[in-house]
């Protein structure tokens, strides 16, 4: 059974959808951030699979940039979570309704 792109792409779709599900089902802010990391990973897998299929390095460069962006996103996101925790002593997104009227 030789490996083809479709197996990797289906797997990446499933991982991405699991990330979406996590954002919808989880209520902790940090758990939601982790689900977003899961979605980014699914997209990365699709990029690498297409790069391998077409034999070009561009896809890998994009994944390089996405990993850097994910690091920046995690740093800022977790800093926001810490600030929110100081404010309300909770990271539950249902209880954080300060900006709602």
């Amino acid at each position, binding site marked *: 059974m*030789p*490996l*083809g*792109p*479709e*197996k*990797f*792409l*289906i*797997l990446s*779709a*499933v*991982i991405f*959808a*699991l990330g*979406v*599900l*996590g954002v*919808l*089902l*989880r*209520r902790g802010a*940090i*758990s939601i*951030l*982790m*689900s977003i*990391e*899961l979605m980014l990973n699914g997209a*990365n*897998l699709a990029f*690498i699979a297409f*790069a*391998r*299929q077409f*034999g070009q*390095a561009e896809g*890998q*460069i994009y*994944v*390089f*940039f996405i*990993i*850097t962006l*994910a*690091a*920046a996103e*995690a*740093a*800022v996101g*977790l*800093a*926001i*979570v*810490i600030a929110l*925790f*100081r404010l309300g002593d909770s*990271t*539950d997104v*249902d209880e954080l309704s300060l900006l709602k009227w």
Partner: protein
Amino acid sequence: MESIAFIVLSILALASALVVVLPVVRNAVVCALALAVNLICVAGFFFLLQAQFIGFLQIIVYAGAIMVLILFVLMLLNVHDERHLGSSGFFQRYLGPLLAVGFVALLVTSLVASLQGAEFPRAGAAYGTVATLGQELFTRFFYPFEAISLLLVVAMIGAVLLAKRRL
């Protein structure tokens, strides 16, 4: 050999992703460790796809740095258990999973229809090495590369500003 590795890795990746996502698991530290397992499995897929450099980058940056950051914040804030499980909204709780399954079905049908039986072509010896990627990064992708370093500085300053109690 490769297909055995693929099957083992995909089972591990899907199981760990389910642990991250499903609100059955209360302990957030368990979720973070499951996410680390998932990230390492995805790095294994990168190795299978002959993207060695990106695979190691995934392990070092994602499974190393970002996971340590998440675990650090989890333990700093001491939010081990989520207070109530699952979302409170009816639509989110029941329509969300339904839409996610529909999304996967849509993607899978279109992918299978367009890529049925496609196989990977033979990759060159230089494919996915540090030399090839470095060449691209410092020639064609030079300006994006510099811009992303600026972004990292901005994110660092922003994180310090947000998390600091008083300036």
